[in-house]
């Protein structure tokens, strides 16, 4: 490309830095607030540099139940983690199995099952949220981790990703395994799953973030505070009615809620981008 215009380069960097500032600014302010006392936050304006209460705020959030929510942030982190891992691992497992069946076996009603699973691509869970709620209620899964996880696994994206990937694996590889004496079970465990590990990892990143960031579904089915996820807990801390919001704790919790998925994205950036562009497109 042609790079002989200094002013254009200057403009380029300026715009990028401005964009980053817009993205970073709210998080930075939140972080600052999480290191200050409520009084200092409400000082109008709150100073824009970190305060002294970082350790105190985070310990208070992690350890004790706050005034508005009867459960510690630690417990909520655990719930979010269970939900995110459950969705990621559960979906990857059932998708790998189903994709394997679709690509490597012939069986009656294969096309019927294929279409059945395919249709789920069309409707995100938000659309059928209330009837799903009733189903989960009938199954007695309200306020359970299983109830948080299972309905969000009913989607075909991962199945299609794996099916697509399996179809690119040369047939001869499977035949070589057969000549070597590997049956369907060993071929799956010894060859197919290890070969899919990049796709599995990419998908894990995407699904972990998806699961961690779920809001509407846990909002509906968790009435027992013991099953609150981070996001629900934060919302409850904000709903104090006439009382004063404990901003310092809310902000500390918000930072804690952001850290795991952000860590995953930054640490596994390449896998994440690959996972995203491949599952969606």
């Amino acid at each position, binding site marked *: *490309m042609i790079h002989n215009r200094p002013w254009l380069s200057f403009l380029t960097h300026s715009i990028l830095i401005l964009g980053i500032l817009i993205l970073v600014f709210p998080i930075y302010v939140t972080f600052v607030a999480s290191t200050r006392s409520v009084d200092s936050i409400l000082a109008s304006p709150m100073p824009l540099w970190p305060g002294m209460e970082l350790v105190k705020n985070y310990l208070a959030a992690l350890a004790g139940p706050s005034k508005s929510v009867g459960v510690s942030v630690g417990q909520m982190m655990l719930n979010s983690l269970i939900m995110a891992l459950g969705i990621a691992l559960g979906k990857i497992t059932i998708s790998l199995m189903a994709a394997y069946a679709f690509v490597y076996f012939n069986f009656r009603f294969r096309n019927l099952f294929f279409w059945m699973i395919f249709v789920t691509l069309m409707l995100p869970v938000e*659309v059928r949220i*209330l*009837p799903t709620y009733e189903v989960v209620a009938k199954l007695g899964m309200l306020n359970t981790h299983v109830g948080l996880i299972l309905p969000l696994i009913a989607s075909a994206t991962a199945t299609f990703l794996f099916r697509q990937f399996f179809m690119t694996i040369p047939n001869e590889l499977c035949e070589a395994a057969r000549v070597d004496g590997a049956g369907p079970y060993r071929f799956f465990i010894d060859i197919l799953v290890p070969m899919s590990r990049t796709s599995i990892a990419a998908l894990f990143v995407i699904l972990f973030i998806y699961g961690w960031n779920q809001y509407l579904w846990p909002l509906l089915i968790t009435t027992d505070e013991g099953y609150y996820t981070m996001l629900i807990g934060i919302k409850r801390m904000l709903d104090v009615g006439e009382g004063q919001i404990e901003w310092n704790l809310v902000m500390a919790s918000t930072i804690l809620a952001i850290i795991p998925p952000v860590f995953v994205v930054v640490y596994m950036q390449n896998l994440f981008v690959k996972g995203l562009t491949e599952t969606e497109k």
Partner: protein
Amino acid sequence: MIQQRVVFNNKVLPYLLIAPQVIITLVFFFWPASQALYQSVLQEDPFGLASTFVGLDNFIDIFTDEIYLNSLLTTGFFSISVTFSSMIVSLLLAVMANRVLWGGAIYKTLLIWPYAVATMIAGVLWFFLFNSTAGIIAYFLRVMEYDWNHALNTGQAMFLVIFASAWRQISYNFIFFLAGLHSIPPSLIEASAIDGASPFKRFWTIVFPLLSPTSFFLIVVNVVYSFFETFGVVHAITGGGPDYATNILVFKVYHDGVLGLDIGSSAAQSVILMSIVIFLTVIQFRYIERKVHY
């Protein structure tokens, strides 16, 4: 579905392999979806004891209900605003990031990570900044003698939910635009540069047209996003108010069904939402070569 290679002859195993996914799909997809269709033509009495078949009455009620029609308009305005404002910013950033030779990877990382922030958290962040008692931005607006109170002012409430929703989506669009830009062969750009086109002209005549598949894909994805995933933003910032100003469809379904317990109407609203999504998905399948080939 194309006929694929079939290697293993096993009568039972394939059924065992698909069983988990099929069962979960049946229980948590087809059952609720059919339930929604079924309930959308029923009217339940307030105690939930009896229900009667009312045909399309629920739908007629919905489409003659001012609040619903208002919600439809609000959703339309909201999703168009979110989609375009977010996409324009992302495109600008992606084109710039694609230009830099030095520091590109750092810029990229810094622009990508907000994808990990939940929509609801995005709502909380901006709710805090614009909060009338604690918010920094609200404070500076007051200093500039601009009266900010999104709890009362409908326009400001709408602006805030659009802003927070679009902010959260910038990273996502950026990733796809950047991927789209990377797939444009450099020789095309060089050829037009040799032809003497200025950088801006190059963008409009070469880059932008070649990005159109990406753009189209992103329009659909962003519209779907702003229809559904933005629930968290609205729920955290405005709760649909003030005066129904940010009462988008998905929020109304939740509100009527969970808080209002009007099952029939909520189910009918779900059915309408489903139709909208299916319509969008079909458009997407039509115009974009998807990963599913038949």
